[in-house]
């Protein structure tokens, strides 16, 4: 089958191994793994093409080693009806850099008031529903969404945040916000919503996936919910593992995201939760913005940073180098686990699977240069960081979507 994995090494059929027309890619010292999967990106199209397009965002995915991304519906207008879901799928197919699974809005216009036509949206190709960017604030609507999605076998992905507790906060509430005179967002703003949703998932039997967990208290709740058999899964993002609220010192808007960078204690709790499986998968929350928007005072700048092109390196730095996880354990959380949260197959290198493959050198160090990003968003706090895990090659269905300049190839 074209574009599929024929087999690994000696297990590959003899006619494939002896095919003289095949290109041979040599990457000594590199890891060959299933294409990485990001359950949480913002591709900004339709409507905010000045920030990112499906084309540029998926090119960034390929450059970061990702072959599959699930994109959030907070576009302008939001992905809350069938034509818009179909539009995203079509544009992604035309671009051809990555598989894109759209996530549909829970409520019309993401206004939190009336449910979208969830069944139609799922049939159109949505893999989950979420009002990400905002929480589903109304507990009654959350309950009904969980009942409806349960029957369809898709999760409700919750941006867990109590809007009243968040208020007009811009960073984690703690000593640094006190010192800098910045309006704080307490960790409880996230955790009270996680607790509420755990109870609603228990009530309905539905599946809540908690997006971008940032607070240690949320981890405690998720761990207890799982122990009680509640269908709750969770993700986090790399920046919560390598930065704390102290990074906001200096008022650089590239350290502004929601949820905010939290305390060192929260960071340590998140790492434990990744290790013990309480946090199921690792995402990016890739949130591109224009330079004009981010080049300002802290309060005026929008929340969010880009992540696709730095995630792998940051995760290796945060989790594998300090020996919290082995490399295969990390890859599981970047491939199979996010797919299973969405109820999707794949994420392996078994014969017959689509040849979605990522090749990277875990030891090879490289320097983050936002100017070289394929993403239109350059809003990263990691400019100039030296990271491990340079991606050498990304392949989607047997076709190369990214190839590092230095990679040697030869014809047989």
């Amino acid at each position: 089958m074209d574009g599929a994995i024929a087999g690994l090494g000696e297990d590959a059929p003899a006619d494939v191994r002896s095919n003289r027309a095949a290109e041979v890619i040599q990457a000594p010292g590199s890891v060959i793994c299933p294409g990485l999967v990001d359950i949480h990106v913002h591709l900004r199209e339709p409507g905010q093409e000045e920030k990112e397009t499906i084309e540029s965002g998926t090119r960034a995915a390929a450059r970061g080693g990702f072959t599959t991304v699930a994109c959030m519906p907070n576009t302008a207008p939001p992905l809350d009806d069938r034509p818009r879901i179909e539009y995203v799928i079509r544009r992604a197919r035309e671009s051809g850099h990555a598989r894109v699974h759209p996530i549909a809005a829970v409520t019309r216009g993401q206004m939190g008031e009336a449910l979208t036509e969830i069944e139609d949206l799922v049939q159109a190709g949505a893999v989950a529903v979420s009002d990400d960017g905002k929480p589903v604030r109304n507990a009654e609507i959350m309950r009904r969404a969980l009942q409806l999605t349960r029957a369809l076998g898709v999760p409700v992905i919750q941006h867990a945040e109590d809007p009243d507790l968040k208020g007009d906060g811009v960073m984690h509430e703690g000593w640094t916000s006190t010192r800098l005179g910045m309006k704080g967002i307490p960790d409880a703003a996230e955790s009270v919503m996680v607790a509420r949703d755990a109870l609603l998932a228990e009530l309905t039997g539905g599946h809540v996936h908690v997006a971008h967990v940032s607070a240690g208290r949320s981890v405690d709740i998720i761990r207890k919910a799982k122990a009680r058999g509640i269908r709750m899964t969770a993700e986090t993002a790399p920046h919560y593992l390598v930065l704390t609220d102290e990074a906001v010192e200096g008022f650089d808007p590239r350290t502004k995201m929601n949820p905010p960078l939290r305390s060192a204690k929260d960071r340590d709790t998140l790492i434990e939760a990744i290790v013990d499986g309480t946090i199921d998968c690792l995402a990016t929350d890739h949130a591109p913005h224009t330079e004009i928007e981010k080049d300002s005072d802290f309060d005026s700048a929008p929340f969010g940073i880009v992540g696709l092109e730095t995630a792998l390196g940051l995760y290796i730095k945060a989790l594998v180098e300090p020996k919290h996880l082995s490399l295969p354990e990390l890859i599981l959380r970047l491939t199979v686990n996010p797919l299973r949260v969405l109820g999707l197959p794949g994420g392996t290198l078994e014969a017959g699977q689509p040849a979605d493959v990522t090749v990277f050198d875990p030891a090879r160090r490289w320097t983050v240069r936002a100017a070289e990003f394929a993403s239109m968003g350059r809003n990263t706090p990691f400019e100039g960081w030296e990271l491990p895990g340079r991606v050498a090659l990304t392949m989607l269905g047997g076709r190369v979507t990214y190839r590092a300049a230095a990679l040697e190839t030869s014809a047989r």
Partner: protein
Amino acid sequence: MIGTRKDLLGLEDLSADEIVSILDTARTFREVLDRPIPKVPSLRGLTAANLFFEASTRTRLSFELAEKRLSADTVNFQTSGSSVSKGESLKDTARNIEAMGIHLVVIRHQSSGAPHYLARNLDAGVINAGDGTHEHPTQGLLDIFTIRERRGSIAGLRVAIIGDIMHSRVARSNIWGLIKLGASVTVAGPPTMMPLEVERFGVSVARSVDEAIEGADVVNILRIQLERQRSTLYSSLREYARVYGVTGERLRRAKPDVTVMHPGPMNRGVEIAQDVADGKHSVILEQVTNGVAVRMAVLYLLAGHKAPDESVPETPATETQKAHGEPSLHPRR
């Protein structure tokens, strides 16, 4: 010392020595203000821009007066929250300042850290005239100057700061400055207006106004602005006045010669009772006068390395410190 700095963004960044050098310079300028013609040519040929993105009367007047007393040219920009994106306008402002060849920028902005943004993006010296709820360093300096004038020195004094600590840039600058100079600071206010981990500034938190005032040398009363805060923070001005208002009765717990301060404008009968505001312990109007001298000192010291041509005296701050300023001030006759 401060003469090697480009900007004054907050008292957190300054050493005790730098603060003392500003206070000493301000002392000299305070004398200038008492002269028949209270003007010196120190900043002749330099241009200062006063950018007030947030409404202000007295701080803006005080800075403008300080600039004029130093013979600087001044330009003013004032807006009260325009419809354009604030971030964009700040960046454009920076570019315009650069294009106009302005030497010193005084900025007040509703966003904490906005002066830091300008400082990063400009060669001009930047003076923070109040950023969001972060710092208001010249207010902190003028408060400390006033305390020092009254009580001789700062070390060992007991200072009570009463009010909305969370949203007060005046409180933050006072706390940093006072603690660096060896005072012991106690804060009191509604628990909803006490920021998380406030003790880490090095202050004690009193459970009541009475406890904070007990034995105090200085009581600094912050302006309460319930109308600007979220309504969830406190019930009413009436309740605030009853629980946190500083009255003559409460003030009796302080030292008999206590110094009473308020950054203004006052809500008489709310955070400060009439008899306290106008009483013998009040130095509230002295604070206003001293504010001009302190701002002159800051402008003068920051301008030390900004001389555009020979018309400006070669008077960097180091010389001022050595000679206490007198030779470089050239009072006009």
